[in-house]
C-alpha cells in the first residue's frame, strides 16, 4: 500500500467577468425593451469589457467545447458562484447550435444590442436562423460558427461517445463484479471503477438530464448496485452545480459509487429483511461505514480518490449536526463530499421501494424530507442545490395535470425557470406520449400546463423518467 495523492495540470482562465456581463445582459434583454435604462447599462458593461479585449487582441473568440467555455483558447474555470453563468452560456450555445462566437474589433453598440435581442427574443433557436438574422440586420462584426464536426477533424471517432444507458448499465455491471471480487478474495481492482465513474462524470457533464432520468430506474436489479450508481450520478450532478472541477467530480463520483461498499459485508438476510431490524441486526448494519474503510484500506495504492472514498464511506451516515453513526470523538465536521453524498444517498434511499416498507416516498416528498432535515441532518446549502438541480418535482415524480392528464417528470426545470415547472412525459389521458414543458406560457403570459396533484403509483414512490423507447437507442 502506498499513498499517492494525484496532481493535475490545467490551464484555465480565472476571470469570468466578460461572460458574466454577457449573461446578465442577455437576461436583461429578455425582460426589458432596448430603451430601458437597465438594458442600456448592461449593454454598456458588455461593450466596455469587449472593447478592452478587442483593443488588445483585435478579436475575441468564445468557444464551447467539451462542456467548457474557452475565451481565446483559454478555458474558463468557473467557481461555485460563477457556475450558473457559465452554464447559461453553454446552454445558449447548445440551444442555438453555436460552436464559436467571434466579436471583431469594429463592433458597435448597435450591433451588440441587435445581437442580444436576437438571442433573447427569437422563438426559433437554430444556427441557420441565427446566421440569417445576423445577415439580415447587417451585423458584420459578430460572427458565429457551428461546433466542429469531430468526425471530419482527423480523429477516428468522437470523444467519449458512449451512451447514458451504456454508462449506467456498465456501472451496475462493474458493481456486480466488485461485489463478487470482494466476496471471493476481498480485493478490489479500482481501474475499472475509475473508468466507469469517469464515464459517469463525462455523461453528467454532457447530458445531465438523461443521467438524472436514469436514476429513476430503481427496481430492476439488486438494490445495492442501482443505489450506488444512482448516488454517484446524483452526487456528480450536485458537485457540478457547485462548480467543482472535473478532477474533483471524478473523485466525488468514485466516493459516491463506493459509499455503501461496506454493505457487501452485511448479511444479505439483514439487507433484505422485510421488517424492522433487531438490536444485533442494527449493530451489524451500522458497521457498514467502518467495513467500507477496511475494505478500501486493502488497496495497494491509496490514491487521493481512494482516500476520498474511504472518508466518505466512513462519514456518509454522520449528519450535518454530527449525529448519526458511526459515533465520532474527534471529528468536528463532515467533509463536503460526504455532505453531498449524504443528501444523494438519503434521497435515493427514501424514494426507492424496499421490501420492509409498504409505502415509498414520492420524489416530491423526498425533497420535503431533505428540506425538513436541512441544517440538522443535511447541509442546508447542499439541500438548496439539490432542489436547484432536481426541481421541486424531481424526475420520476408522477404528476396529475389539468384536464385529467397524468405525466412523469422527465427532466428538472431548466436554469432560470421556476423550480416547480419541469418537463413532463404524459403517460395517461389525452396526448399520451407527448412531452409537456410546464414552464411554457401562452400569449398572455399564463402557464399552459400546471401540476395539480402528485401521485404515488402503487405506493412505490415514482415512475421511471425514461420510456422503453429511450432505452432502445
Amino acid at each position, binding site marked *: *500500500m502506498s*499513498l499517492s*495523492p494525484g496532481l*493535475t*495540470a*490545467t490551464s484555465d482562465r480565472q476571470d469570468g467577468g466578460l461572460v458574466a456581463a454577457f449573461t446578465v445582459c442577455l437576461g436583461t434583454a429578455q425582460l426589458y425593451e432596448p430603451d430601458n435604462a437597465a438594458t442600456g447599462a448592461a449593454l454598456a458593461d458588455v461593450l466596455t469589457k469587449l472593447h478592452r479585449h478587442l483593443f488588445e487582441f483585435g478579436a475575441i473568440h468564445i468557444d464551447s467545447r467539451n462542456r467548457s467555455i*474557452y475565451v481565446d483558447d483559454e*478555458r474558463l474555470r468557473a467557481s*461555485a*458562484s460563477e457556475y450558473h453563468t457559465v452554464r447559461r452560456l453553454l446552454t445558449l450555445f447548445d440551444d442555438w447550435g453555436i460552436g464559436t462566437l467571434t466579436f471583431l474589433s469594429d463592433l458597435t453598440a448597435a450591433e451588440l444590442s441587435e445581437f442580444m435581442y436576437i438571442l433573447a427574443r427569437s422563438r426559433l433557436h437554430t444556427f441557420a436562423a441565427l446566421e440569417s438574422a445576423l445577415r439580415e440586420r447587417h451585423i458584420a462584426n459578430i460572427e458565429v460558427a457551428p461546433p466542429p464536426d469531430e468526425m471530419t*477533424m*482527423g480523429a477516428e*471517432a*468522437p470523444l*467519449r461517445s*458512449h451512451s447514458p*444507458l451504456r454508462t*449506467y*448499465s*456498465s456501472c451496475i455491471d462493474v458493481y456486480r463484479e466488485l461485489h463478487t471480487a470482494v466476496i471471493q478474495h476481498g480485493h478490489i*481492482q*479500482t*481501474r475499472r471503477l*475509475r473508468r466507469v465513474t469517469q464515464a459517469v462524470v463525462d455523461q453528467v457533464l454532457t447530458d445531465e438530464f438523461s443521467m438524472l432520468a436514469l436514476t429513476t*430506474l430503481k427496481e430492476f436489479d439488486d438494490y445495492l448496485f442501482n443505489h450506488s450508481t444512482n448516488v454517484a450520478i446524483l452526487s456528480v450532478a450536485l458537485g457540478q452545480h*457547485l462548480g467543482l472541477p472535473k478532477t474533483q467530480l471524478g473523485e466525488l463520483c468514485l466516493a459516491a459509487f463506493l459509499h455503501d461498499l461496506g454493505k457487501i459485508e452485511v448479511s444479505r438476510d439483514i439487507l433484505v429483511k422485510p421488517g424492522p431490524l433487531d438490536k444485533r441486526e442494527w449493530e451489524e448494519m451500522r458497521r457498514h461505514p467502518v467495513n467500507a*474503510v*477496511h475494505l478500501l*484500506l*486493502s*488497496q495497494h495504492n491509496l*490514491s487521493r480518490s481512494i*482516500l476520498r472514498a474511504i*472518508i466518505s464511506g466512513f462519514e456518509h451516515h454522520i449528519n450535518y449536526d454530527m449525529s448519526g453513526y*458511526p*459515533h*465520532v*470523538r474527534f*471529528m468536528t465536521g463532515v*467533509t463536503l463530499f460526504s455532505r453531498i453524498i449524504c443528501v444523494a444517498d438519503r434521497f435515493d434511499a427514501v424514494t426507492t421501494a424496499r421490501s420492509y416498507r409498504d409505502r415509498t416516498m414520492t420524489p*416530491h416528498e423526498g425533497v*420535503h424530507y431533505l428540506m425538513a432535515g436541512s441544517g440538522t441532518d443535511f447541509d442546508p*446549502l447542499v439541500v438548496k*442545490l439539490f432542489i436547484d438541480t432536481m426541481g421541486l418535482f424531481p424526475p420520476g415524480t*408522477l404528476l396529475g395535470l389539468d384536464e385529467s392528464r397524468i405525466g412523469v417528470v422527465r427532466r428538472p426545470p431548466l*436554469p432560470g425557470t*421556476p*423550480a*416547480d415547472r419541469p418537463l413532463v412525459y404524459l*403517460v395517461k389521458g389525452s396526448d399520451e406520449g407527448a412531452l409537456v414543458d410546464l414552464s411554457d406560457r401562452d400569449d398572455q403570459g*399564463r402557464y399552459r400546463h400546471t*401540476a395539480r396533484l*402528485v*401521485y*404515488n*403509483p*402503487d*405506493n412505490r414512490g415514482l415512475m421511471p423518467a425514461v*420510456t*422503453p423507447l429511450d432505452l432502445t437507442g
Partner: protein
Amino acid sequence: MRFYPPDHPLATESVDLLHRTARVLLAERQEIVLNVQESSLDFEGIPVFSGDRPRENLAFLMFRDGVRSLRLRSGLQRDEMVALVKVLAQADALDRAEDDLATVLWEQDFAHIDYYVLDPLLEGEEEESTTADDLRTGLFKVFGQTDTLDLAEGLPPELAPDTTKQDERPVIGSLTLTQDLEQFEQAMRAEPDVLDEFLLVLCEILVDPSSSTESPDVPRAIGELLTSYLDRGEFDTLASAIQRLRELGQSAPDKVPALEAIIGSLASLERLRRAVLGLDGPFVDQRAGLEAVLLQLGESAHASLLQLLAEADGINGRRAVLNTLAHGGISMQQIVPYLSDPRWYVVRNMAYLLGTLRDDTTLPALERAIAHPDERVRREVVRALGNLNEHQAARLLELALSDPASSVRVLAARGIVWQKGSTAAALLLGLVAAKDFAARPESEVQAFLEALGDLADDSAVSSLDVLWEPRLFLRRRPTHVRVGAVRALGRIATPRARQSLERATRSSDSEICGQAKKSLAEAYRKGAAP
C-alpha cells in the same frame, strides 16, 4: 522524463522543444491529431513514430490502454505538455490493477488536449451486457401496468400544491444565493487536506471500542500515512499528526501501546534516512520541522539517528540529528561505542554529543578521544571538556594547551578559563613567556593572553609588561602580541596591572596607547565592581 526528473535541464529542454514545435504547428492548423495504431503514431495518415519493442513503444502502450487518438489544440500550454509527457513516460510503470493511461489522462483534465479512448465496457466493441436488456424489460413491464396503477395521492395535505392559485404562486428560481456560494467557496478553501481527514477517520476507527479485534489495516494505514508525510518532507504536518495521535492516546489509554508502535515505526533507519539526507537536498528548508518530528519520536529514533550521523555528509542533516540528539536525551552508553569508529567525523560528532550531556561521567570517554589522531576530533573533545567543571577536565585541558595543533590549543585556552579553581595560570604564564610564543598564530596568542588575563593575578603583570613594552636594540614584538598583552592586563585589573596600563597609555605606539586606554577603563570598571 523516464530517466530524468522534470526539472532536469535535459528534460526541460526536450519539453520546451516539443512545446515550441507544437505551438508552431498549431499556429498553422489549429489542432494536431495523432492517430494511435498498434505500433505507430500516425499524423495525417503517415507514421511519425514507431517502434518494435512493446514496452518501450509509446504507441503500443497507448493502444493497449484503449487510447486511439490524441488531439492537441491551439492554446496548448507548456504545463499541459509537461503533464502529458509525464503521464506517457510513466505509462508502463502504472499499477494496472489501479490505473491505466485512460484513467490517468482523464485525471489531468487537460484544457487543450483531447483524446479518444475505446473502452470495450462502455463502447461498441463488446456486446452489451444483459443489464441493459434487464433495464429495458423492466421498463416495458412498468409502462405496461400504467392503466392499472393505484394512484394514491403522494402528499400529505400540507405539502400538496395549492391547486386554486396555480398562476399566482411565486416564481421560484434558484434557491442558492450567490452569497451562499461565496460562503461555500470560503469554506472550501478552509477545508482540511484530504490526508488530514483520512487520518482523522483512521483515528476514529482505532479508538472505536468495537474495533479492538479488527484487522491490522488501520494501524498499518496510519503508519503508511505518517511515512508518506515523512517521505514527502511534510514534516510540520507529520508533527501535527503525531501530536494528534498522542492526544488520542490520552482519551483512549488502552490504545497507547498500539499508537506508540505506529509512531515508533517511523524511527527505523530506512525511514529516517531519506528525510535526514533530504535536508541537504529537496527538503533543504525543512530542518526545523524535521527536528520537531525527531524530537517527538524520542528515544526510539536515537539508534537510527546515531547511525545516520555517521552517514549524513550534508551540514543540514548532520545539524538536525545533532540538535535532536543533543536535546532529546541521548545517553552516554549509546554514544560510547561510536568513539571507536574508524571515521574521524563520526568520532567528532560523538564527542560533540558527549559535550552536550555536560556530565562528568563522560570524562573517561573524552580522555580516550582526546588522543585521537585527527585534530578535528580533538577540537570537539576540548570543546566538550570546556563544558565540564571538574578537576580531571581541567587537567585534560591543561594537557591540550600543548596539543600539536594550534586550533586545539586555542580551544583549550578558551575552555580552561571556565574551570573552577584552575591552576592553569602558571602553566599559561610559562607558555606565554616562552621564546616561541610570539611566533605562534595570532588566534592562539590572543586566546592564551585572554586566558591568562582571566586567570592570573599580579604575578603575571611583569611578564605581560615584557610583552608589550618596546625592547631596546631589538625589534618590537608583533603588534598583535603587544596589544594582546595590554588587553590581558585590563582583564587582571589589579592596581599593579592598572599602573602598567597607565604607562602604556603614554606609549608612542598609537595602537598600544589606544588599547591601553580601553583596557584601563575596563580595569577600573572591573575594580569598581563588587
